[in-house]
């Protein structure tokens, strides 16, 4: 540990994409990834985003875990997108905080197993800051509150660089999760920070602080930074970094 503290910090630029369509965010991830493959010294980037409602499939599918018809989703105007990340079917929607770290694991000597574990730890610590008893569960990866899943993880690695990432339920509409067997698991329920806080408020009369995406964003930055030993620059904090970022996005 002391050895690690003596090492210079790794660094990454943090970009808040706001509410952005899944496919457009994936295009942006792919562009940044390709740019990092072509320029191995370029900075790591961490994207923070909420998606409009969408179902996504893992590399090995998961459509068999859709428990309603495609027509039902068409009527609701919700797309299903095939991806190349690990894991099975999942749902994204407004009120869910999504983090896509596009980081050079190879260069930074972060093992894949260690990285997945660390992403789970970010979600666990974020939920725990709201007094929620969140933890890992032997059933499956991701983060759980008892038998309810609150956060998921699924990444891809290309030439040692990660993309895709984690999704933590803050206050999304949880109904669409009932239309799938999330992550390919049946008989599990899905929860959110808001839902768990309501339970706590009912029993412990906790102060009802507003639950904002900005709080979650700050928590993700803080814990990513400490878990992976990163110094993280928000892209709107530095005009120089922003310019570079825009070049990639263009």
């Amino acid at each position, binding site marked *: 540990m002391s050895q690690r503290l003596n090492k210079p910090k790794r660094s990454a630029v943090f970009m808040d994409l706001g509410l952005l369509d899944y496919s457009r965010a994936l295009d942006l991830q792919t562009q940044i990834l390709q740019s990092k493959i072509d320029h191995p010294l370029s900075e790591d980037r961490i994207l923070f985003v909420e998606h409009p409602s969408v179902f996504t499939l*893992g590399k*090995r599918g998961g459509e068999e875990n859709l428990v309603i018809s495609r027509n039902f989703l068409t009527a609701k105007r919700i797309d299903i997108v095939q991806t190349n*990340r*690990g894991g099975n079917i999942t749902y994204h929607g407004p009120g869910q905080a999504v983090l896509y770290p596009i980081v050079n694991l190879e260069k930074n000597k972060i*093992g*894949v197993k260690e*990285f997945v574990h660390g992403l789970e730890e970010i979600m666990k610590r974020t939920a725990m800051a709201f007094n929620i008893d969140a933890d890992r569960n032997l059933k499956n990866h991701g983060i759980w509150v008892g038998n309810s899943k609150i956060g998921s993880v699924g*990444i891809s690695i*290309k030439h040692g660089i990660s993309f895709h990432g984690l999704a933590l339920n803050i206050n999304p509409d949880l109904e669409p999760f009932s239309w799938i067997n999330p992550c390919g698991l049946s008989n599990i329920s899905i929860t959110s920070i808001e839902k768990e806080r309501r339970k706590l408020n009912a029993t412990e009369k906790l102060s009802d602080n507003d639950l904002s995406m900005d709080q979650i964003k700050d928590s993700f930055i803080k814990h990513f930074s400490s878990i992976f030993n990163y110094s993280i620059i928000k892209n709107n904090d530095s005009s120089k970094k922003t310019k570079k970022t825009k070049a990639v996005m263009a």
Partner: protein
Amino acid sequence: MKEMSDLNLPADVKYTKDHEWAKLSGDIVTIGINDYAQDQLGEVVFVELPEIGDTFSQGDEFGSVESVKAVSEIYIPISGEIVEINEGLEDAPELVNTDCYNDGWLIKVKPENTSEMDNLMDKPAYLDMLKG
């Protein structure tokens, strides 16, 4: 993760920068991922391999290894045609973790040009790269 000194890196295979290994026997090259790769991936749950007869150029992506919640691309160490894939991995992908140089091999390739093996690293060069 394993310490450098604990890594099992045989001296009779060649290595790529993406941590695959390749071994030429007769006119066929056997390919897999090495001990460093399997260790840092964690438990392998699925291996996606090409079809027999597919052809690739050196460095092309030829499949992927899925460990828990992570899909990692794998790259072919030598140009050529796939002549055999390790079908045992379908039921026992964990062989990639437990025996990556023997029962956990991935593919066999009939190389276009065996001199491409010279572009790969021997054990000392690969270790230097890891330490780099």
